[in-house]
């Protein structure tokens, strides 16, 4: 892509297309078209360790859609989606606003490529609202401050953290950030987390992540199901708890071919 170096004084924001990029690799695995050859190359190299990752990535997306529909059914109309990623089919606001057009969604990411796509392509119904904020998952105060422009924290909010907590390397720090975000919400709010784990094919996943972390995009970590449970401490987990994404309240149509995938997910209610 960028065959020539940036000119001195160039004001081009820092979109680096010379190295692979986690959101674009994810887009490649999901069958999107917003990736470059370098992402396909690294994405394929990761798949050489764990070919099932494509299925896991897609199961994670389906989990997102089912979780949002579940939350809408519980009366939730406000969503704080942290770690937006590149737009794909059935983004959070599309699922939510299809069922409840007045839903308000704040997308959070710190990547200029993701943000510019989100602003252009993740657009709200006239009845609802979408906002896009530039913040790092490591900085919950900034997220909460900016999200308050669009969300009413006096009403229940769903905090959506899909495939993002794995970018917080330290588990204590991750638990602290999740706790801080939930502290800002009222009872009746929800937390949704999905996370790659060592529960399925631990050895291959560990090798794959070791390789990933050498490729220049943001480093990430795997966790066990037990560690994920800790993020939901003190909350009321919706059935069936923290499970492989493909088995979290599957739609009837999906039952036939359900296989365990490495991404686990859960939904819990603040009491």
């Amino acid at each position: 892509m960028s065959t020539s170096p940036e000119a001195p004084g160039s004001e081009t924001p820092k979109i680096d297309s010379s190295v692979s990029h986690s959101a674009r690799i994810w887009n490649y695995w999901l069958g999107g078209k917003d990736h470059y050859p370098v992402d396909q190359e690294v994405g394929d190299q990761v798949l050489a360790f764990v070919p099932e990752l494509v299925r896991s990535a897609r199961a994670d997306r389906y989990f997102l859609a089912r979780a949002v529909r579940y939350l809408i059914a519980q009366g939730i109309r406000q969503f704080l989606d942290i770690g937006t990623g590149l737009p794909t089919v059935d983004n959070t606001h599309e699922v939510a606003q299809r069922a409840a057009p007045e839903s308000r969604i704040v997308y959070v990411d710190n990547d200029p490529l993701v943000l510019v796509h989100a602003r252009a392509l993740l657009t709200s119904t006239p009845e609802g609202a979408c906002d896009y904020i530039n913040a790092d998952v490591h900085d919950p105060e900034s997220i909460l401050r900016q999200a308050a422009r669009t969300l009413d924290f006096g009403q229940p909010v769903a905090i959506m953290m899909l495939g993002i907590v794995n970018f917080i390397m330290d588990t204590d720090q991750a638990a602290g950030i999740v706790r801080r975000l939930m502290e800002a919400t009222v009872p009746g709010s929800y937390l949704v987390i999905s996370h790659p784990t060592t529960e399925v094919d631990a050895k291959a996943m560990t090798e794959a992540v070791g390789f990933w972390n050498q490729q220049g995009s943001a480093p990430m970590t795997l966790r066990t199901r037990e560690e994920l449970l800790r993020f939901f401490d003190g909350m009321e987990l919706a059935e069936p708890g923290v499970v492989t994404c493909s088995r979290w309240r599957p739609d009837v149509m999906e039952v036939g071919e359900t296989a365990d995938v490495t991404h686990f997910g859960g939904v819990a209610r603040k009491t």
Partner: protein
Amino acid sequence: MDVARARASEGRDVRQPGAGRSSARLVLGARLRRLREAAGVSPETACKTIRASRSKISRLELGRTGFKLRDVADLLTLYGVRDDAERATMLALVEHTNADSWWQEYADVVPAWLEEFLDLEQAATLIRAYEVAYVPGLLQTKDYARAVLWSGHPATRGMDAERRVRLRLGRQRVLHRAEPARLWAVIDETALRRPVGGGAVMRAQLRYLIEASRLPNVNIQVLPLSAGGHPAAGGGLTMLRFSESELPDVVYLEQMLTAVYLNRPADTAYYLDVLNRLAAQAEELDATAITLERILSGIT
């Protein structure tokens, strides 16, 4: 001209297209490629079977040329497709793709290099564009479009100008139909300040852009002069994306007497990167209406 009137006028000007002719062609081509690859048949062998050149198969599989019933029937046989129902479906698609293009009634003012674009544009679900000299064709008012066409080279003025204007407005249906495409355009400030057709025409054009920018499926970003150098300094470009996952993006680069179409991932990824950088460098979408108002107030 307001958005509603633009819609009404194009409704009169353009008949319904041969219902998705070009997307059917794209899908048919992609299916033929999958069948060929699944059967392990080389493009060379496929070419021989239909008595055509190597490039012909590639154009067919990319949906860039028309299909003959006999060719497709022979290819299906070669690929081992014997199921009558499957063959009938594919052959019905062929007949469908041979329906007239929406632009046929303007065929006399459509140069050969433009034909494919006119089909592909209507089949796209996302159209990304950067324009440096003019307001993008999909967002032009009738008067502005007429002025653009009249300011062209004298050799092209002899063509029926009003028909060319109507053809251009006909393209805009892609943004206003029941399931419209999304247009994501970055427009250089230069294009917005150049009073093509004079002050009155340009003011109306800018007002129309302000209205169009409020459509849910239209994103307009202004690349201000103050942004300085940028990665598309060479000129405008358009990228078309289709909903079918197997169809690659197509980049369209129009020149004065011809156009370039790119669809190899190595090429299109370069332009995708350019478009991404432009979008990141341009003003945010929220600022567009204010910027357009400011430019409008400066045009006398």
